[in-house]
């Protein structure tokens, strides 16, 4: 089967391992994906982050070839693969529930892709040993999956997807079945393996902490569209929309009385009866604006150029070193603040509380 190579643009598109162009997917009348564009560079770990039902798993299934797109193109290393079978695509996949072959040993599971590719026995053995070494699973070659713990099974599943060195490894919530402590450990493992091998990885999760810990870049999905894309820092500091601000950065959204855009991506905003100047990335004139304020940027003491928010305490939660306080601010909305416990002072339900946020910590975003 020969597939015409897709023309490569001069601006370095040739270095993209995976490119999605205008991918749509409809199941009958239900739209699962709506014009998705995404590019993953070689050696990059990109996370698709979104609530359940946002289309991230469907997108992954289209890349691996379990589903075909209704419209649009999937391009892997310059070749259009949209109509190929999964076997023709040279991808690796890690599933949430491991999906190891129960009748095969660890070595046979890891070597499966090589066997299918008709590699010699010697090469298979060498490569399996290498991969198990990398995964710190040497010595488990002859075990069966049922004899392994969940974390070990997931390592074997990683090994099976990596052993034949595919163009891209797809991971569908691979840590979803593990408990919290193990998840943190495996996050570091995936990070380390990604670094050591230089593997290209497209990772799906609904857990923002996991996305933050792992990703070079994050694409945030909502209702079948990518609604925000960037490095963890970019998305966290300058969310492009209210949804991204609240879903990804846990920001509170405050009602804005009016605003005026200024040159240089800032805005002059009237909020809660005060004027402030703050960043306004991705806002076009005429958009409805809301003010996003992250939990940690709120303080009990105000400095110059701070927005003052006064209201009634609706909830107080102890979270480790912090207290999370929910305050209803009349005319602005409900805000959630994370205050260091040792300096949070007296906090009681129903009390009046004043909180301050520095202007440069607030972001005006489109209310989507």
């Amino acid at each position, binding site marked *: 089967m020969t597939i015409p190579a897709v023309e490569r643009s001069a601006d370095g598109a040739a270095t993209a391992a995976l490119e999605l162009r205008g991918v749509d997917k409809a199941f009958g009348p239900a739209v699962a994906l709506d014009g998705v564009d995404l590019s993953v560079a070689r050696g990059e770990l990109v996370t698709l982050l979104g609530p359940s039902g946002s289309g991230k798993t469907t997108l992954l299934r289209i890349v*691996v*070839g*379990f589903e075909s797109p209704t419209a649009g193109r999937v391009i892997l290393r310059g070749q259009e693969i949209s109509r190929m*079978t*999964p*076997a023709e695509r*040279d*991808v*690796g*996949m890690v*599933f949430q*529930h491991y*999906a*190891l*072959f*129960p*009748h095969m040993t660890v070595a046979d599971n890891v070597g*499966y*892709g090589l066997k*299918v*590719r008709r590699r010699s026995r010697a090469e298979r053995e060498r490569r399996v040993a290498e991969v198990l070494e990398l995964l710190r699973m040497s010595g488990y070659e002859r075990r069966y999956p049922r004899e392994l713990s969940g974390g070990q099974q997931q390592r074997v599943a990683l090994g*099976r*997807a990596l052993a*034949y060195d595919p163009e891209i490894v*797809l991971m569908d919530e691979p840590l979803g079945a593990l408990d919290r402590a193990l998840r943190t450990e495996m996050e570091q493992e995936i990070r380390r393996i990604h670094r050591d091998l230089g593997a290209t990885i497209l990772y799906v999760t609904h857990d923002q902490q996991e996305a933050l810990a792992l990703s070079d870049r994050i694409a945030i999905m909502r209702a079948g569209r990518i609604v925000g894309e960037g490095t963890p820092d970019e998305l966290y500091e300058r969310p492009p929309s209210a949804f991204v601000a609240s879903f990804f950065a846990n920001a509170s959204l405050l009602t804005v009385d009016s605003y005026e855009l200024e040159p240089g991506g800032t805005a002059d905003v009237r909020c809660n009866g005060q004027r402030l100047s703050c960043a306004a990335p991705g806002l076009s004139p005429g958009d409805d604006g809301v003010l996003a304020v992250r939990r940690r940027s709120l303080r009990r003491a105000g400095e110059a150029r701070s927005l003052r928010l006064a209201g009634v305490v609706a909830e107080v939660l102890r979270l480790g070193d912090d207290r999370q306080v929910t305050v209803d601010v009349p005319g602005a909305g409900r805000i959630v603040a994370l205050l260091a416990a040792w300096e949070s002072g007296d906090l009681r339900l129903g009390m009046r509380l004043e909180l301050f946020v520095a202007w440069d910590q607030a972001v005006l975003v489109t209310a989507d």
Partner: protein
Amino acid sequence: MSDRLVHVLGIVVAALVVTILLAPVLLTAVLSLSSDSYFTFPPDSWGLRQYREVLGDARWASAVSYSFELAVPVALLSVAIAVPTAFAIGRSRLPGRHAIYAGGLAGIVVPISAFAIALYGVFAELGLHGTYVGLVLANTVLAVPVVLIVVTAAMARVPVELELAAMAAGASRRRAWLGITTRLLLPSIVAGGVLAFVTSFDEVVLIVFLGGVDQTTLPKAILDSARFGVSPVITAVSTLLMLGTSAVAIAAVGLARRRR
């Protein structure tokens, strides 16, 4: 009522049911050890006389061998039909796959005498009445549901992700189905085949309706022998039949349970 009482009552009821069901079986087995030439209870003397008579009589041997001649191809044919059907039902998006499943089970849902009468008419039309091929086909219709039930149930427990994982790793769909799913289903497929064999081996209604005079299976021979003169020999034949089929069925179930 306390849980304990319910528990004890449950055991008593279960024991009673098992005893009532098994009593005739045990009685038959006991009677088969009689040395009398006619039925008496309790027997006047004990011995293996009935078994010697069975083994010495060529009619019984030929009935057993004819039962095998039917049951083996029926089992193979049932597996050959039921396994691909199970894949169509469990692993495809084929429209009407639920109707296929319902249709596949018809053989054990329709009352067997009604089925036999219907086939009688059809076979008369097609010239299949009293033929070996006709009997194999008729028994297969009865045996397919057994295999289908066992294999679809087992397939539901094999995660689809295993096939997807194989295909993502580079296997064709055929290779994933054969090398992974079918391989994992193998114990259940063998178990289903054995149960199909037993279904055909034990079958007595279809052979009475559709069989010719020279087509005598073991159950038919037992029936004939009971009809034309009561001899204690049939207790030995029945006991052997029960032992044989139970051994095979237990082996099949054990096989299906292994490697879970």
